């Protein structure tokens, strides 16, 4: 059994009068685990916020069994893709509506991560955050394929161009990760997860460090990161879901 010790989240638009095209799912009890997610509607196409909302709505409707089985993640993404494809019936201009989606299901033995796009999941490990998901951006793919060196793309536009997202017009390409608690539990047995949209991690990556006491406290992490984003000025809509869990057997250590 896993228990939620603490969590904090935020989601706000780049500029106040503008629509927030991110949608988030703060930790929600689903069966014996917790589900949380960040979706970032792809801004170049009409229906971005409807697409990200639709993805989160679908996740919240799922029973615990939907996260079990070998092809659970694939099924979830395919169902969401089908919902987003149907958005065009509500509004013909949503023909190209698209969203990214990154979700974590913290179950009994570990965390199952499903990921499409450029939101990120970080785990706290040895006093630092380790990025677990791989950005589905054009630049990352070009580097992975050995077509460019990172230095060659440093000043080149296109960092926010995706090669994968959930959309009627794009073939589904997703990353699935399962990480056992045995592999990343903190010294005190706690598990800290951080989901961020690109607007949020843009500021985090400027200087990817906070005091360890801040990393251990999702509320403090959220307020510090938010302050940093405002100071640097948001480059996009910004979302964070931060949560700290502990396995039930470890919980006794806190008593």
């Amino acid at each position, binding site marked *: 059994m896993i228990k939620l010790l603490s969590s904090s989240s935020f989601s706000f638009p780049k500029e106040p009068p503008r629509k927030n095209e991110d949608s988030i799912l703060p930790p929600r009890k689903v069966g014996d685990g917790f589900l949380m997610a960040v979706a970032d509607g792809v801004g*170049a196409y009409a229906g971005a916020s409807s697409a990200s909302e639709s993805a989160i709505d679908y996740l919240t409707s799922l029973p615990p069994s939907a996260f079990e089985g070998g092809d659970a993640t694939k099924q979830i993404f395919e169902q969401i893709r089908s919902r987003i494809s149907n958005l065009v019936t509500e509004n*013909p201009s949503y*023909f190209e509506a698209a969203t990214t989606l990154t979700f974590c299901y913290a179950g009994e033995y570990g965390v199952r991560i499903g990921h499409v796009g450029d939101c990120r999941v970080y785990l706290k490990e040895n006093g630092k955050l380790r990025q677990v998901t791989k950005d589905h951006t*054009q630049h990352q793919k070009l580097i992975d394929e050995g077509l460019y060196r990172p230095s060659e793309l440093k000043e080149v536009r296109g960092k926010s161009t995706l090669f994968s997202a959930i959309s009627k*017009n794009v073939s589904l390409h997703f990353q699935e990760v399962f990480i056992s608690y045995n592999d990343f539990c903190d010294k005190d047995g706690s598990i800290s997860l951080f989901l961020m949209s*690109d607007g949020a991690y843009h500021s985090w990556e400027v200087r990817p460090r906070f005091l360890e006491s801040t990393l251990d406290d999702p509320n403090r992490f959220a307020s510090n990161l938010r302050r940093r984003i405002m100071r640097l000025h948001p480059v*996009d809509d910004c979302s964070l879901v931060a949560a700290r869990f502990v396995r039930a057997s470890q919980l006794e250590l806190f008593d």
Partner: protein
Amino acid sequence: MDGYHGNYKYRIIKRIGKGGFGFVERIELFNIEGVRCGEYARKCLSDLDKEIREEFRRRFAREVSYQASCVHTNVANIYLCDLKSEQPWFIMDLADGDLQDDIDSGALTVSQKIKIILMVLDGLIYLHSLGYLHRDIKPSNILRFGDVYKVSDFGLVKNLDKSAESEVITKIAMAMGTANYMAPEISAAGDYSKRSDIFALGVLLEDLDMLGNPGVHEVFKRSTTRRPNDRYAEVQDMRDDLVAAVQGER
């Protein structure tokens, strides 16, 4: 008459081609006085499903606007268009054939091949000078008008003009074009650049069976190498090397 547009009218002779989202007709064009201007090609957007109609009308309008802005001997130009009708269309010169047919016929001489590839390169140099990428260079998109070859089919042309993209907006890159002429960065991540057009031009050298000349083979290798930054940066550089390689064969 089958249609009127401004001071012109046209009669459809027959349909001469069909693609996924449109078709091409051979037409006879007249001015309003009934004076025959000659035979032309009319490209029309098909009657598409409501769901995709608006998007494809937008793309068609973009194709027309880019192609109409080109004035160069080696780029097929557009004379008339109607983008507001139910089925948008444009009128261009009627081609005598395309490069694919001429390659298939096996009748092209070495000297003709050299002239053809230089015409295509000149067309591309012009397109790139306007900030356009063609993104679908292949023999069937190179049309022949008499002895002159012109780059055509602007369906996938992209404007590199950065001013239109001042705000950082997330978008999705998609691989479009024809697999055989697609640079690795396109298939992997939908990344287009002048160098991906240069890759397709390199494949064209192979299509024309010109690699027997060691100099041309070197140009081919440098045009189609896997890493974009190892290719020619500009079509003009490729042209210069090619001209040097074929000295004596022209």
